[in-house]
């Protein structure tokens, strides 16, 4: 079963030496050397885009590093593809499940073996599986289809699969992101136990400090593709790790602000909803956004920010609580949004706020094409007025398009963003809800869009800014909220904001 040349009991260690990975001009990994000692539980910490995934993909042979060596055990090895990595005893548990849903656990384990016989003798296989399971610290039902297992059981089965295939060095890519906290603790406890007892070596990608301190022996921290520090977990405090992970960020220069906040425009009280996975609860006790202020919602992705956006846009039902805009109950119908002057700029606007194949002019008319200027519904469209308005907006917002009649999908990301912003900011806007407005945009587009948001705030609009980019939050916000595990875990006015503290709350440590 095992393709290792080491004796079965000896744990293996893995080391990267000067690993560099370039994608064109972009340096994803810059001379990263980390050492995972045999039989240890090693954590790899870093923000989104810090290069953690790139590093492990180089180790597993998905990417071929531009330069650098990989040492497995005590020999330098060259790993060209995942199969070669498997042959050296390296295995990976991915963030998403790789099990086949309709096959049972036993079938999933057996079919992944390289030497499946043409006719499978299930009596034999079951015996062998039972022997194997007896050596494992945890059990998973093997006779029901994987689709009927819970997320925790699936993740355990992924782990079992790697061990069944004889892997001695496991890379876990955010293994707890789809699990409830209790499931996460159980799983990591078992992994920890196996590193101690069964000679397994584990490298876990994470950004949760709590999991690092509770389970890992050692930690390496990456930031912007570089190794910035690490060592024994027992020697490091959360503040140390947060400082390494987030770095010496200085608050970037604030755009000019004017005016004082007015009354609350948006208020959420005790809103309870189920998250996307259907497993976790989104629970927002109290959230207010006042006129003339920007409230920034920071957080690591997947902690309820998307759901918050969906709640406000009426895309997600909630079980309890109330959402009100200007004191009136609000369920995001077109009529209400229009009456209360609520506008949205969702993430990936081409997919979430546009009809990609309709023209720029038509897309820009979405807010008001069906009313006649006096708030009355209209039957015949006034295409002339629509086009005239689109021409004005394209000029005013500097949208680069060959013509207002070209499909909006033909525009670049920044120009789609400008076009949607132009549509959403036209007329009286009392509440603007924005999600990741600058994701994937170039520098000049970012600066321009942030300036527009700030201008809206200065003219008295209440802005709720949900963003995974902490720099953006710190630059624009008047108040910063941190979402973690579906709740608002922390709130601070920008003047008193401490980056280390924000980072710790983002990482799930209260």
């Amino acid at each position: 079963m095992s393709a290792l040349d080491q004796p079965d009991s000896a744990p293996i260690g893995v080391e990267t030496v000067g690993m560099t990975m370039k994608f064109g001009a972009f340096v994803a990994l810059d001379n990263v050397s980390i050492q995972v000692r045999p039989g240890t539980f090693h954590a790899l910490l870093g923000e989104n885009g810090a290069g953690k995934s790139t590093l492990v993909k180089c180790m597993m042979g998905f990417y071929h590093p531009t330069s650098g060596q990989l040492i497995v055990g005590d020999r330098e090895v060259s790993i060209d593809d995942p199969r070669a990595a498997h042959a050296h005893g390296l295995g990976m548990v991915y963030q998403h499940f790789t099990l086949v849903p309709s096959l049972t656990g036993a079938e999933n384990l057996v079919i992944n073996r390289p030497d499946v016989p043409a006719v499978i003798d299930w009596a034999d296989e079951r015996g062998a599986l039972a022997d194997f399971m007896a050596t494992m610290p945890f059990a998973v039902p093997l006779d029901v289809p994987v689709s009927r297992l819970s997320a925790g059981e699936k993740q355990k089965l992924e782990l079992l699969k790697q061990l069944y295939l004889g892997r001695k060095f496991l890379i876990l890519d955010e293994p707890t992101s789809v699990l409830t906290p209790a499931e996460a603790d159980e799983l990591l406890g078992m992994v920890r136990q196996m590193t101690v007892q069964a000679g397994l070596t584990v490298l876990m990608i994470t950004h949760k400090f709590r999991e690092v301190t509770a389970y890992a022996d050692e930690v390496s921290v990456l930031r912007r593709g570089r190794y910035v520090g690490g060592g024994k977990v027992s020697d490091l405090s959360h503040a140390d790790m947060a400082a390494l992970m987030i770095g010496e960020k200085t608050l970037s220069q604030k755009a000019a602000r004017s005016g004082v906040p007015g009354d609350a425009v948006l208020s959420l009280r005790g809103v309870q909803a189920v998250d996307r996975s259907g497993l976790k609860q989104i629970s927002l006790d109290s959230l207010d956004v006042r006129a003339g202020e920007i409230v920034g919602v920071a957080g690591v992705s997947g902690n309820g920010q998307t759901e918050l956006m969906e709640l406000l846009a009426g895309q997600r039902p909630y079980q309890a609580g109330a959402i009100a805009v200007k004191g009136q109950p609000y369920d995001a119908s077109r009529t209400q949004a229009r009456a209360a002057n609520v506008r949205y700029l969702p993430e990936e606007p081409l997919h979430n706020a546009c009809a990609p194949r309709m023209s720029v002019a038509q897309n820009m008319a979405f807010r008001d094409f069906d009313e006649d200027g006096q708030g009355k519904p209209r039957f015949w469209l006034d295409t002339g007025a629509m086009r005239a308005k689109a021409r004005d907006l394209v000029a005013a917002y500097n949208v680069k398009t060959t013509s207002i009649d070209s499909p909006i999908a033909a525009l670049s990301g920044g120009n789609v963003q400008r076009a949607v912003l132009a549509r959403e900011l036209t007329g009286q806007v009392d509440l603007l809800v924005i999600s990741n407005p600058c994701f994937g945009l170039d520098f000049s587009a970012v600066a321009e869009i942030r300036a527009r948001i700030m201008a809206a705030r200065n003219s008295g609009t209440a802005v709720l800014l949900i963003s995974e980019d902490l720099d953006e939050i710190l630059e624009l916000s008047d108040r910063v909220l941190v979402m973690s595990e579906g709740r608002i875990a922390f709130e601070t006015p920008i003047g008193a904001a401490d980056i280390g503290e924000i980072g710790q709350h983002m990482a799930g440590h209260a």
Partner: protein
Amino acid sequence: MNGLDIGWWGVPIAIIGGAIRVSTPFIFVSLGECLTERSGRINLGLEGTLVFGAMAGYAVAFHTGSPWAGVAAAALAGMLFGLLHGWLCSLPKVNDIAVGIALMLFGTGIAFFFGKPYIQPVAPDLPAIPLGWWTDIPQLEAALRVNVLFVIGAILAFAMAWMFKATRVGLIVRVVGDSTDAARAMGLDPNWVRLWSTAAGGALAGIGGAYLSLYYPGSWNEGISSGQGLMAVALVIFARWNPINCLWAALLFGGAGALGPALQSVGVSEGYYLFFAAPYVLTLGLLVATSSPTQAISGAPGELSITK
């Protein structure tokens, strides 16, 4: 009425006989479709494959004098249709449902074109096993004359269920049908697996067609199929992609199809034609009853375009 007058007992006997006689093409086509769909692709062209198989089988049986040569020719022709479907669908941006409908029209059209000269000639029939030798009742004896292909089809259903469960090939087909990503991660080539699953499914549908022209009704004409190839797709869904359930579903469907003629034979002359619609009403009713608006169909292969 000659022989014994058995009165209303004729109805259940006719239903049993009809279930066995009428169900055979359904068994083959639905097993073929089941295999293809389990690999993650849907082949709506099996109706065309069935009609072409009926024509090819009849023609070859007529020229060689051997009905089994006809069955082999039908299977081969069906396999070629399956390969064509599988190859077209492996091209980028090709939709399997659209290709299936095109091949259905192509298959029936080309079968009518080449089949014109074979409408008059008489080809040898497939042999049947007289399982009713012990009875004196002619109706029962007739009902129990079981064709060899029915027996093969029934065995095949169990063999296919075993294959999906306990062979490497079977598990690979299921892996590919359920998750293309997982299959690729295992180093399998999903298109290759689907190509041959579709080819094998086409061969089975061809055999189903040969049964039509070589046993029941036992002649080649342009109205030989009454949509068996399309109903088989519904049968597979109703059978929840399980080959053994496909067998039961085909029997149920065949039995329901025999209801109309059986009632007619015992003298129900009014409204009996409504019972000709029984299989279709039954299928519709069962599909409605077993579907759920909130849940995805259980047992459906994850990569199937109609369940995605």
